[in-house]
């Protein structure tokens, strides 16, 4: 009887643990090993020590990709700001507000590939965006939105923001609805104006959601791929202007067949992600201590 009981929990765990062991744990170990090898998937890996890492340090495109990924993190504060603002607006009890909420949520479910392709068509030199700006007289000449290196990253970041804002708005809305009405009444009695009310009641009340969104959206920003892929047609933009760390990893591993070198990039990504997660958790802990 006791014997049977002691085996039961493991039986329950086996299917899921097997999947995670094969598709997450083993690959982590393997990618560490590959990063020290010369490997092209079709031929067996060959140990080369630190060669990939040395090559990586000297690779200007890697540094460019790394800086692009760090720049990309600007989407996190932008998303937090815009989605809190929008959540405050849709938290008002107005006729038709439910329809607006649902509408704003649509980009979150429609998938970044389809939407990225749609935006690419709109941003074409002969597309609707140039057409509109020209006919309104805002532009004299069409802008080459997707062929101008300086615009690649900002446009991708705008797309990421556009895709995410409705989802994060819902997260903050759920948070706002958990804030007791009395706190707002108290703020009103204390003579707070609208801005002070949100500054002193809404923002502190939303702290768990802000932490959640900060963690999730910054990890997503570090790993951005689909937006870059669709907007640049899989090329990474002119002069690598849209190449982020994950895009560079993908290109090295699956376009150029440098799996060993790409594994070294993967290790850098892992270190950055870990550093970021630890930082985020620290900030979270400090936040809860302050309460």
């Amino acid at each position, binding site marked *: 009887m006791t014997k049977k009981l002691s085996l039961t929990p493991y039986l329950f765990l086996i299917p899921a643990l097997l999947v995670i062991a094969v598709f997450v744990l083993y690959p982590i170990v393997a990618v560490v090993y590959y990063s020290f090898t010369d490997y092209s998937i079709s031929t067996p890996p060959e140990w080369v020590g630190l060669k990939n890492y040395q090559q990586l340090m000297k690779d200007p495109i890697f540094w460019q990709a790394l800086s692009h990924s760090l720049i990309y993190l600007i989407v996190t504060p932008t998303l937090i700001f815009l989605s809190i603002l929008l959540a405050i607006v849709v938290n008002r009890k107005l006729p038709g507000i439910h329809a607006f909420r649902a509408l704003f949520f649509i980009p979150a479910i429609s998938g970044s590939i389809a939407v990225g392709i749609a935006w690419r068509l709109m941003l074409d030199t002969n597309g609707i965006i140039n057409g509109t700006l020209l006919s309104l007289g805002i532009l004299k000449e069409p802008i080459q939105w997707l062929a101008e290196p300086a615009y690649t990253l900002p446009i991708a970041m705008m797309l990421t923001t556009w895709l995410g804002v409705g989802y994060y708005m819902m997260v903050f809305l759920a948070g706002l609805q958990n804030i007791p009405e009395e706190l707002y009444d108290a703020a009103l009695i204390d003579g707070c104006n609208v801005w002070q009310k949100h500054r002193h009641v809404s923002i502190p009340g939303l702290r768990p959601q802000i932490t959640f969104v900060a963690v999730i959206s910054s990890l997503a920003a570090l790993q951005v*791929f689909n937006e870059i892929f669709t907007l640049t047609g899989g090329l990474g933009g002119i002069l690598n202007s849209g190449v982020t760390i994950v895009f560079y990893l993908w290109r090295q591993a699956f376009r150029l067949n440098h799996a060993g070198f790409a594994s070294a990039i993967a290790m850098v990504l892992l270190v950055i992600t870990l550093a970021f997660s630890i930082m985020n958790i620290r900030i979270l802990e400090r936040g809860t201590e302050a309460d």
Partner: protein
Amino acid sequence: MQQTQTRSVYNAAVFRQVIEKILLYVVLCLVAVVTIFPFVWVFFTSLKGPNDPIVSVPPQLIPQDPTLANYVRVWNQLPVWRFYLNSVIVTLSVVVLNTLFTALAAYPLAKMKFRGRDAIFYLLLATYIVPPVLTSIPSFVLAVNVFRYYDKLPAVIFPYLAGVLNIFLLRQAFKSVPDDLLDAGRMDGASELRIWWNILMPIIRPTLATVAIITFVEQWNNFFWPSLMLHTRENMTLQVGLVALQGAFANDARGIAAGVVMTVIPIIIFFSALQQQFVRGLTGAVKG
């Protein structure tokens, strides 16, 4: 005198409220336009006939000569129905099996005491922050050399049959079920599997829905890994097929637009039908 003053103060307050409401609606409508415009534009473009210009100043939004020819062209040139079928097969298999496997795993983690429980839990927690791209290189090698399912549908199903986030959400839900219920079941001589299926699973149905919806949206829109695995057109899912379509119709904005509409329509319909569940499900992970 006194009365008129109160009245004017009252009027001013009403006036302010009306102005505020108008401003709010202006903001809401602006955001709505920015949100919905790409969908509207892509929809109208997909219906444009050969005489409707894609490029013009001022731009033309609504087709004068609407036609379904673009859809027919795309449908005839690419195995679109296979894209749909494959996406449905992949998404449904993953949603059902992933929910089942993670619910199984979450039960002992929430309700049983056994050797290694905390170690397993923290190991899972640690894997949660590992970027999925990181595992793609070894997973690719496994797919080609070990499982030999490269370019086949199982390649995009098997890696997703368990998810750490889902285990956490379900563990949390199981934890909130009172132990008395389980003990009652054990007294009646029910096996742990029966207790899990007959007592616990019905109680945590809302969390199961959350998990199913998160997994559904994730899988339906999954691109990175499927694009590495699926190369024969007949084996592609919708997202991968859409990128292939974009390549095949490079100079045909109407055709690409039709492809985008066909990809997005099912999930938008699904979302409209189950709005509340979608929103609750996708944001439910926060409380976690």
